[in-house]
C-alpha cells in the first residue's frame, strides 16, 4: 500500500511536468496545425538558460526563473517568425521538416555550447526549501515530508506540483476569460475567417508560441531541480509530453493537462509493475493505441480527417 502511494506520487510529479510541456505542443497544433518538434528543445533551453543566468551572471533563482521564461518566450516567437511564418501557406510537410530541422539545430547547439555532460543547479544558489536531503548516518530528513514506506516527499516535488496546477488554472483563465484568449480560440477554429474578422492572426500565433515556450521553460527548470540538465532531456521528455497531447486530443488544452497526468502515471506504474525495460515505450504504445482506437483523443471532439 505504501508502495502504491509512493508510485502514485512519483507519477503525479512526472505527470505535472509532462502536462506543462504538452500544453505547448497542443496550443501550437490547435492554432496552426503544426507538430512543433522543436518544443522539447525549447524546454531544454529553458533549463540551460536558467542555469547560465544563475551560474554565469550570478542572478538569484527567483529572478532567473521568470527571466528564463521570458527568454524562452522570445526564442519561441523568434522560431515562429523566422522559420514557420514564411511557410504558413506551404505544404504541411515543409513546416514539419522545418520543425525537425530546428529541433536538430537547437539540440546540437546545446551539445556544443554546454557539452553532453549532465549539469545541475548548484545547491547553494537555490532557495533552501528546494534542497531536500536524507542524512544517511542520522536519518535526519531535510525539507521533505516523510512517507509511510520510509521514503520522503521533498518540498521540491510539492512545489513542482503546486506550480503546475497554478499555471494550468492560470492558462485556463487566460484562454477563456481574456480577449487574447478569445482571439486564440477564434484562430484555432478558423484562421482565415479570424483574419477577416480583424484579428491579427500572426500576433495571436506569436503569443501562442510565447505562452507555450514559457511554460516549457518552467517545466525545464523543474526537471533541472529534481533530475538533471542534459542536451537530450528535451527529446525524451518531449516525446512523452507529445504522447500526452495526443492522448488528450491534440489541440485540446484541458485534454493535454489530463493527458500529461495520465501518461506520467502510466509510465510510473508500467515501469514499476509491468516491465521497466519498456518504460519509455509505454508513452509510444499509448500514443499508437489512441490513434488506432480514438484518433481525436480522450477529450477531443470527433473530427474525422479534419485534425
Amino acid at each position, binding site marked *: 500500500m505504501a508502495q502504491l502511494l509512493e508510485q502514485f506520487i512519483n507519477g503525479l510529479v512526472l505527470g505535472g511536468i509532462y502536462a506543462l510541456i504538452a500544453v505547448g505542443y497542443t496550443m501550437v*497544433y490547435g492554432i496552426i*496545425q503544426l*507538430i512543433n518538434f522543436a518544443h522539447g528543445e525549447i524546454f531544454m533551453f529553458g533549463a540551460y538558460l536558467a542555469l547560465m543566468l544563475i551560474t554565469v551572471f550570478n542572478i538569484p533563482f527567483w529572478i532567473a526563473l521568470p527571466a528564463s521564461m521570458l527568454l524562452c518566450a522570445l526564442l519561441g516567437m523568434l522560431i515562429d517568425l523566422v*522559420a514557420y511564418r*514564411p*511557410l504558413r501557406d*506551404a*505544404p*504541411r*510537410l*515543409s*513546416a*514539419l*521538416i*522545418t520543425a*525537425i*530541422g*530546428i*529541433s*536538430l*539545430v*537547437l*539540440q*546540437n*547547439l546545446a*551539445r*556544443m555550447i554546454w557539452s553532453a555532460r549532465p549539469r545541475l543547479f548548484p545547491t547553494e544558489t537555490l532557495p533552501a526549501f528546494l534542497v531536500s536531503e536524507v542524512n544517511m548516518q542520522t536519518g535526519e530528513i531535510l525539507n521533505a515530508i516523510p512517507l509511510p514506506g520510509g521514503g520522503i516527499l521533498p518540498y521540491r516535488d510539492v512545489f513542482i506540483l503546486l506550480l503546475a496546477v497554478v499555471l494550468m488554472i492560470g492558462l485556463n483563465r487566460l484562454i477563456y476569460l481574456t480577449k487574447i484568449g478569445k482571439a486564440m480560440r477564434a484562430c484555432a477554429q478558423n484562421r482565415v475567417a479570424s483574419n477577416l474578422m480583424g484579428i491579427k492572426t500572426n500576433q495571436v500565433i506569436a503569443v501562442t508560441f510565447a505562452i507555450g515556450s514559457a511554460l516549457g521553460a518552467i517545466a525545464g527548470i523543474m526537471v533541472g531541480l529534481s533530475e538533471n540538465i542534459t542536451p537530450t532531456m528535451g527529446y525524451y521528455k518531449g*516525446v512523452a509530453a*507529445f504522447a500526452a497531447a*495526443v492522448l488528450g486530443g*491534440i489541440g485540446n488544452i484541458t485534454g493535454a493537462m489530463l493527458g500529461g497526468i495520465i501518461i506520467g502515471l502510466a509510465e510510473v506504474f508500467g515501469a514499476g509493475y509491468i*516491465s521497466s*525495460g*519498456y518504460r*519509455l*515505450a509505454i508513452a*509510444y*504504445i499509448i*500514443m*499508437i493505441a489512441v*490513434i*488506432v482506437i480514438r*484518433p481525436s483523443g480522450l477529450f477531443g471532439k470527433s473530427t*474525422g*480527417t*479534419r*485534425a
Partner: protein
Amino acid sequence: MKDKLTRKNIILGLLICFLPLLMYGIDDIVDFLSRYDIYLGWPGGEYMLRIIVRAGVYMLLAVGLNIVCGFTGLLDLGYVCFYLIGGYTAGILMARLGVSYWIALPLAVLHGTVWGLLRGAPTLRLTGDYFAIVTFGFAELFFRIIRNEQWLVGAPNGQLRGIPAPTFFGITFNQNWHNYYHILILLTLVIFITYRLQHSRVGRAWVAIREDEQAAESMGINVSRYKSLAFAVSAAIGALGGGFIAQFQVSISVPFFDFWESILILCMVVLGGMGSIRGAMIGAAILGSLGEVLRPGFIIPYQFGNARYLIFGIILILLMRFRPSGLSLKKA
C-alpha cells in the same frame, strides 16, 4: 528522364560497372609509386569501396523513403524501422538458424512489407500528422523490442554477430567488390521498379493524393489502396536494405538503427528534392559519404564532429524555406 545512349551515359555506365577494378587499379599505381618513395594521399581501394557500398545502401533507403515522403507527401519519421526489421530478420535467420541468404533476404523483405501495411493501416483515414506520429512510435517500439527481448537475438542490445556472407556454388561473397556488385544489382532493381511505378497509373495516383487527397478521392482514386501500396513498397525496400546491411556488416546491434538514422535518410530525400528518384540518390550519395570525406579535415577540432547534425538541421530549414525542390532541377 529520357535516357539515351549518349557518350556521357556510356562512360558513366562503364565507370559504374568497372569501379572496383578502377579502385584496385589505383591501388596498384599507388603501390608502384610508393616503391620510389612517392606517397599519394590515396586511402586505399577497399576503404573507398566500403564507403561507396554504404552510400549505395543509403541510396536504396532514400529511394524507398522517397516513395512515402516524396510521392504521397506523408512524413515518415521512423523509416529506420524497416531497415531494422530487414536487418534482424535476415540476420537472425542466417546467423542463428542457418538459413541461406537467398531465402533469408526475400523473407526479410516480406516481413518488412507486412509491417509496412500494419503500420500504415490505422492512419489511412487520418491526415499526415498522425502518420508521422505513428511512424515515430513504431520505430522506437521496434528498437526497444530488439533491445529488451534477448531471446530473439541471443545477446544484449541486439548484438548479433557472425552473420555469414552469402554463398553461391561454393563462392563466398564477402569481399568489398562482391558487395559493390551486390548492392548495384539491388539498387538497379529497386530503381527500375520505382521508376516504372512512378511513371504509371500508380505513380500518378500517388501524386494526386499528395496534391489534394479529397480531390483525388472524388476523381475516383482509391486513396486507401494507393497509400497502402506506397507503404508496402517503401517498407519492402527498407527491409531489403536491412537484409543487405546485415551480411555486409557481419555484426549488427541496435544503435545501427536509432532515430537519428531515420532523420539522416529523411535529410537525404529532402536535400535531393522530394519526389525525385534521382534527387534521392544524389542526396544519399552526398550525405552518405560526407562524413568520410570530411574525416581527415575534421580530425583536429573534435567539437566540430559533433556539429554534423547541427549542419543537417540548418540544411533542412534553409531548403524548406528557399528551395523546397532540393538540389534537383525539377520543381517538386
